[in-house]
């Protein structure tokens, strides 16, 4: 144990030395923008989104986001695969659990009934307005999943229909890839922004960005919900 500590402290010292030598070369707070100048100056005109981060995430670097959505999909599927249990065993386990789990308190139940639709609405607002205000599909999806988590806490016995969750997940993933392939057909580039850009700073603008963000919002929200569901030990 002791030698392990000494070795690890030596490794950490080497790492720390590396950090000091490299960080001192990157001046903090100075303007070092290079490629991003293009995004800042041309972004609104070329993508129609006033939120430049969104236009970078979904247009200039849209391929990363496709990968990112895929990573989350893998996590949800992988979680399902690792925690998969046969149905028969599952029923037995849940029966014994039922005796132990108490009902949630009245305040929690009433409060979450009241809050749940509002949370969903807020999540939807965040991902629909991703190209106008801070936020977007991932943030909105996380908010939606938190609403579902609240419902799980308030009503531990009820569970969501996993099949519909997985259908929404795959459909929204397909929409994202499909838009990419449509871009390839219409303008020759995968994931290109082939729809009309509209007037910037209005809801119906920025071409494919809102559509993708709505799909991403649904996908992330339902994926995180199914992750919560799996981790609660409900299985299929």
């Amino acid at each position, binding site marked *: 144990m002791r030698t392990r500590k000494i070795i690890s402290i030596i490794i950490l010292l080497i790492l720390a030395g590396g950090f000091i030598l490299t960080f001192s070369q990157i001046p903090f707070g100075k303007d070092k923008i290079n490629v991003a100048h293009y995004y800042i100056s041309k972004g609104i005109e070329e993508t129609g989104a006033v939120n430049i981060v969104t236009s970078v995430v979904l247009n200039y670097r849209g*391929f990363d986001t496709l990968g990112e959505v895929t990573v989350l999909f893998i996590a949800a599927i992988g979680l399902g695969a690792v925690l998969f249990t046969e149905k028969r065993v599952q029923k037995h386990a849940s029966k014994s659990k039922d005796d132990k789990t108490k009902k949630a308190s009245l305040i929690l139940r009433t409060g979450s009934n009241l809050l749940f639709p509002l949370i969903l609405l807020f999540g939807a607002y965040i991902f629909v307005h991703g190209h106008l205000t801070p936020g977007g599909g991932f943030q909105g999806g996380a908010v939606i999943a938190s609403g579902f988590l609240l419902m799980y806490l308030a009503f531990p016995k009820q569970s969501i229909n996993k099949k519909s969750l997985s259908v929404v997940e795959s459909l929204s993933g397909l929409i994202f890839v499909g838009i990419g392939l449509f871009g390839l057909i219409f303008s020759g580039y995968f994931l290109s922004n082939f729809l009309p850009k509209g007037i910037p700073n209005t809801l119906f603008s920025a071409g494919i960005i809102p559509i993708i963000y709505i799909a991403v919002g649904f996908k992330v929200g339902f994926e995180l919900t199914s992750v919560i569901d799996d981790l609660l030990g409900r299985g299929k």
Partner: protein
Amino acid sequence: MVNPSLLIGLPLAFAFSIPLFGLISKKIEKYIPIIALFINMVISFMLIPQILKKPIVVSIGGWSPPFCINLVVGPLGILLATLISGIGFLVSIYAVSYIKEEPTEKYHILFLLLMVGAIGIVLTGDIFNLFVFFEILCISSYALVAYYKDKEGTEAAMKYLIQGSVGSSFILIGVALLYGFFGTLNMADIASRITSANPTYLFITLAFLITGFGIEAAIFPLNAWLPDAHSSAPSSISAILSGIAIKTGVYGVARMVYTIFNANSILLFIAFLGLLTLLIGEMCAFRQDDIKRLLAYSSIGQIGLIIFALGIATSLGVFASLFQIVSHALAKALLFLAAGYMIYRVGSKSIASLNGLGKKMPLTSFAFTIGSFSLIGLPPFAGFVSKLSIVYAAMQVKKPVFLAFIAIALIATIIEAGYFFKIVQNLYFKEGKNLDKITESSGYILIPIAILAILIIVIGVHPQFITGLLKASARELLERAGYIGWVLGGT
């Protein structure tokens, strides 16, 4: 012209649609990876002649590089993409009857996404995108290693996950440092400006990136996860991990060292590391009595040989290294697939339990023999040509160090021959116990095994089928000005 972005887009679409097909019928899902990877293989074969004439650079989203992500499909990219989709296609045929444990639907999704990750890594021209695809590959393989949910599998997956995600964090630190200095993420753009940074900064950044990719490539001393993960995964996944996943780590190291950093000064160190990995892998393999662990350690040894040849850094050396990548991918996939089914029939992973299988499963055992002879480097198999060219390349350098190196590498090969001959001898000449009920493998198992064995012999007898592509790929790695020119235009 076929757009190379289809190579990534189509399998991704198929992977997303597997749950929908699962609603229609439970029987369709296992054929989807076969269809997707077959289409991929056909597309990549169609692209090869075009790319040999002129590499294709496609932008994603329609802006010119460096302002958007672009795929750079050079000879090296298409070589590895063809290899990945070809082996993936064969392994997915194998999986049709091999994978029976539920939830099979999730297995097929994860498998297809693993292939997407590997293809993305070798085709992308953007360093952050490389990281994202690397994560796709890693995360799906963590989940697949734990697929059987048994004691060993979950433990190995945990170990792999911890080391792998430290590695990917290191890659991300390296990417952040590169962006902090150069303000761009396009690999060609970074490569063209690399001289403007100071050497210490570059060295530390490169160290982060090589450590990160080295964990996936299992270069000594970062190889602790590999034997466990490769031996406790389902055999089809072991074949993919050994045949393809670790090669993407090697690709990452090669791309960083040659194209981006142009770091000629550390090449000797890399050759030395490779040699160390080779020796340690082969010596550990010699002591194993579990067949899958033995194959996993032998993979470490072979990766060491590949890295060693990369470190030679002459055009012949890089050519030999790429040839070794191809021949090892074919042979190791074959060995894992054949051994996997023998284990399935016998019910035990120990080498002693395979005694006498040569009479009961003649075709599978014969294929296993071909694979192991190719790994040792016997003619007329593919491994012979690749090992011979590595030796030849090292002799040509005319530095005394390399002569010593090649002597050590030959000793390692002798060790390798020792344990493989022992297994093959046991297969054929020892009497086994309780073998009465064992029969030959079924069609879905034999087809991929047979195709791999035939490929090994064909490439061994007629290496000229692939040498053109391999030479062009070696040129792509060594002439970085050419790579920068393809992407940014001009030279």
